[in-house]
C-alpha cells in the first residue's frame, strides 16, 4: 500500500528544495517556530540525531553522559551533514540542548549562524507574551541572515499553512486504525513533517487519508500507546509489528505532542506563540506529571490500548523523571507500562525486542 503513496525521503526532499532555489534551516528539537522560518524563506529541516551514526566528532565536545540525540546532532554537524543549511536553530528544550546551543555559539562556531529560542516552561499568559517577544527577537536575526523581513500578510500566510499541516498530522494520528499502512510506513509518513514544506506534507497526508482501506480486514492487532521522543531506531516499529501490535496512541515528542491547535488573532507573533504552547502536555515544556498522566490515560482510553511503551533515550532527563509516577498512575487504571531504553547511535538491541514481544504477549 505504501507503494501507492510515494513518501519522499529526507535526502530527496531536501535536494528538490535546494535545486529549486530554496534555502534551509537545520532545526533541533522540540518545538521549532516553523511558520517564522518559512516566512523568512527558510525551510525548517529537523535534526533528530540522525540515528545509527558515529557520535565520535561530537564526543570531543560533549561528555558521554549527554544524551545521544544531542551528541549525534553535533557529530552530524561536524561531519558536514548540515553544510547546506543557511542557519542552525537550537530551541531551548532541556539542559543538553541548552549546552549544545551554547557550545556551538561559544566554541564550535560553525560556518552558518547559530540561533536559539527559549521555550517557556509554562502556559500562562505571561509565558505566551514572553514567547511572542522571543520570536520577534528571532525574527530580527532571521531578517539579518536572509535579508528578508516578512510583512504581516506573509507571516499570517505562513502560520495558516503550518496550521493546515498540523491539522493534517492530527487527522493522520486520529485515523491511524483506518489506514492501510504498516508501522514503519506510517511513521515515515508522519515524520516527513520534519522536513517537507508544510503544504507538501498536507497534500501527502490528504492523499494518504484518501487511500482505500486494505483489501480484506487488517489483521487484529494489539493497540499500544507509544511514548518518548522519537521512534528510533525505526527497527523498533518493525519489531512491534512483527509482535502483532500497533501504535494506536501517539505520545511522541516528534509527532503526537505537536498536535498544535489552530489560532486566531491580529498579532502574528502572538498567534505563533499561542500555537507553539498549545500542544498536548510535554515534559520538555514543563507540563505537570498529572497533566501528562491524564493525557496518557486519554490516549489509552481513546485507542483501546491496555499498554504504554515508554521509549526513552539514555540520559534524557525530561522523559526519565516522570516515569515512576506515570507508571503507577497508569497501573491504577489497569494499563500496563514497559520501559525501553535506547541509544540513538546504536542498533536496536535484541533484548529490547524480546521484552517488547513479551509485553505485547501479556496484553493479549
Amino acid at each position, binding site marked *: 500500500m505504501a507503494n501507492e503513496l510515494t513518501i519522499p525521503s529526507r535526502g530527496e526532499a531536501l535536494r528538490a528544495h535546494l535545486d529549486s532555489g530554496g534555502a534551509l534551516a537545520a532545526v533541533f528539537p522540540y518545538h521549532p517556530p516553523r511558520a517564522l522560518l518559512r516566512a523568512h524563506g527558510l525551510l525548517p529541516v529537523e535534526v533528530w540525531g540522525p540515528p545509527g551514526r558515529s557520535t565520535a566528532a561530537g564526543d570531543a565536545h560533549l561528555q558521554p*553522559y549527554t544524551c545521544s540525540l544531542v551528541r549525534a546532532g553535533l557529530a552530524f554537524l561536524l561531519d558536514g551533514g548540515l553544510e547546506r543549511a543557511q542557519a542552525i536553530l537550537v530551541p531551548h528544550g532541556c539542559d543538553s540542548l541548552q*549546552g549544545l546551543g551554547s557550545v556551538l555559539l561559544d566554541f564550535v562556531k560553525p560556518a552558518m549562524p547559530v540561533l536559539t529560542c527559549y521555550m517557556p516552561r509554562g502556559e500562562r499568559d505571561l509565558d505566551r507574551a514572553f514567547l511572542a517577544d522571543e520570536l520577534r527577537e528571532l525574527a530580527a536575526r532571521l531578517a539579518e541572515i536572509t535579508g528578508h523581513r516578512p510583512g504581516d500578510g506573509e507571516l499570517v500566510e505562513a502560520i495558516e499553512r503550518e496550521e493546515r499541516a498540523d491539522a493534517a498530522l492530527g487527522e493522520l494520528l486520529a485515523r491511524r486504525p483506518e489506514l492501510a499502512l504498516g508501522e514503519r510506513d506510517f511513521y515515515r509518513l508522519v515524520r516527513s513533517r520534519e522536513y517537507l514544506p508544510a503544504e507538501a506534507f498536507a497534500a501527502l497526508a490528504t492523499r494518504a487519508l484518501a487511500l482505500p482501506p486494505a483489501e480484506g480486514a487488517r489483521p487484529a492487532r494489539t493497540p499500544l500507546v507509544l511514548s518518548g521522543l522519537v521512534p528510533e531506531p525505526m527497527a523498533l516499529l518493525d519489531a512491534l509489528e512483527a509482535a502483532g501490535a500497533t501504535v494506536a496512541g501517539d505520545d511522541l515528542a516528534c509527532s503526537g505532542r505537536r498536535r498544535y491547535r489552530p489560532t486566531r488573532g491580529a498579532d502574528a507573533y502572538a498567534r505563533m506563540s499561542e500555537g507553539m504552547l498549545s500542544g498536548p502536555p510535554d515534559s520538555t515544556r514543563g507540563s505537570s506529571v498529572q497533566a501528562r498522566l491524564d493525557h496518557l490515560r486519554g490516549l489509552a482510553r481513546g485507542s483501546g490500548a491496555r499498554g504504554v511503551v515508554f521509549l526513552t533515550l539514555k540520559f534524557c532527563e525530561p522523559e526519565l523523571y516522570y516515569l515512576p509516577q506515570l507508571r503507577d498512575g497508569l497501573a491504577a487504571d489497569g494499563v500496563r507500562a514497559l520501559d525501553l531504553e535506547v541509544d540513538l547511535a546504536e542498533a536496536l538491541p535484541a533484548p529490547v525486542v524480546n521484552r517488547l514481544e513479551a509485553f505485547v504477549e501479556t496484553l493479549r
Partner: protein
Amino acid sequence: MSLLGALTYHANVSLLGHAALRLDRWRTERKLGRMPTAGPHLGPPLATSGWLKELISRHYLAGRHANRVRKVAWVTSGAPIEHLKALGYYLLYPENHGAVCGIRRWGERQCQAAEDAGYSRDLCSYARTDFGTVLSGKTPVGRLPRPDLLLCCNNICQTVLYWYQVLAHHFRVPLVLIDTPFLYAEARPYMLAHVRRQIDAAVEAAERVAGRSLAPARLEGVMRLSHEAIGLWLKIMQTGRHRPAPILAFDEFIHMAPIVEMRGDESTVAYYRALLAELEERARRGVGALQVEKKRLLWDNLPIWYRLRPLAEALASRGVALVASTYTNAWGELVELIDPARPLDSMARAYLHPILNRGTGHKLATMARMLEEYHADGVLLHSDRSCKPYSIGQMDQQRRLAGELGKPALLLDADHNDPRAYAEAQAANRLQAFLEVLGV
C-alpha cells in the same frame, strides 16, 4: 497553629534545642582551639566552625518542628526567596539537604532508595537523594518538614523543574515556577520583565498559601540582610587572594551553607562578619589554610561531597591550595545587581544572572578572571555526571584554558552525590599526573 504546637516548637527548638546546640558549639570551639592544625598538611582549623555547626543544626532542628508553627516552602537553591522569608515561611533546600547527606555518606543509600522506586540512576543524584529521603522518611537530620508550597526557579538547570513536578505530584501541593530564560548572550529587557512578572505572581501565590499579605518594609528588610550577607560572603571568598590563602574552597563548600539556605537572616550576617574577621586576621598574620602553599588551583563545578576531606588532604600533601571555585563564587558575584531599596526588581535582575543561567563562554571568561584575581596556576574541572548544565562546555573550556591561557586544567570525572560514579584509583592517578605537570 495550635497552642500545643507552638509550645512544643518553642520547647524543642527555642529552649532545649537552643541550649543543647549552644553547649555543643562551646565544646566544638574548645576542641578546635586545642587543635594546632586541621590535618597533617593543613593549617589551623577555622575557629568559627563551631558557630557554623550550630547555625546549620538549628536550621534543621527548626525544620523538624516547623509544620507545627509555620508554613513551609521547599525551594531550589537559586530561587528568589526573600518574599518567602518576609512572609515567615520556613525554607527547606533539598539540594542543601542532599549535600548534607553526601557529606555524611548517606548519598548512596538515599539514591538507592529512589532507584528501588523506579527512578533512573541517570537522574541527578541530588534529586535521587531527595526522592530517597521523601520515600524512605529517613535522613541524617532527623526529619524534614512537609512542604505547603514548592518554589522552583530553573536558573540553575531544567532538572529542578522535572524534580519539583515529581514532588508536586507526590505531596499534592502548589508548585510555583519562576522560569528564567537562559542567557546565551546579554539579557534583553523583555527577559527581565518576564522574570519580574513571575516574581509578582510568586508573591501572590505565597501570600495565598500563607494567608497574609507581604509587608513591603519587611521585604526590604530581608533584602537588606540578603544583600549584606552576599557582600560579606564575597569578601570572605576574596580573602583567598592572599598568599598564603587563609581559606580553601573546600572550607567554602561547607561555610556556604548559610548564604544558600539562611540568606535574609540576621544570624547569617552576624556569622559571616565573624568569619570574615577571622580570615582577615589570618591574612594579616600570614596564616595559611595549608602549612606550605606551593601552587594554587581553581575549582569548577559542584564539590564531590563525599570526598571533600580526602581530596583536600591529597592536594595539601603536595602543597596545592584550592583557593577559589566558580561554584561558591556564584553566591557572591551578583551582589552589585541587588538594590535593597528596589527588592522585586533586584530579585528579577539578580536571579536571572547566575553563572549557571549563562553561556559556556561566560563561564570560561569567569574562570579566566578568577585565575588572574586569585593568582591560580591551574584549574580542576569536576566533570559532574549529575550536573549537565555545569559540565557541558568543560571539554572546550579545558582546551582554551590550557591553550590560550596557558593554564593546565584537569577534567576529573565524578558525581557530586553518588559515590558509585566515582572511581577512586582512576581519579588519584589522573590527579597525580596533573600535579606533576604543575611541578609539585
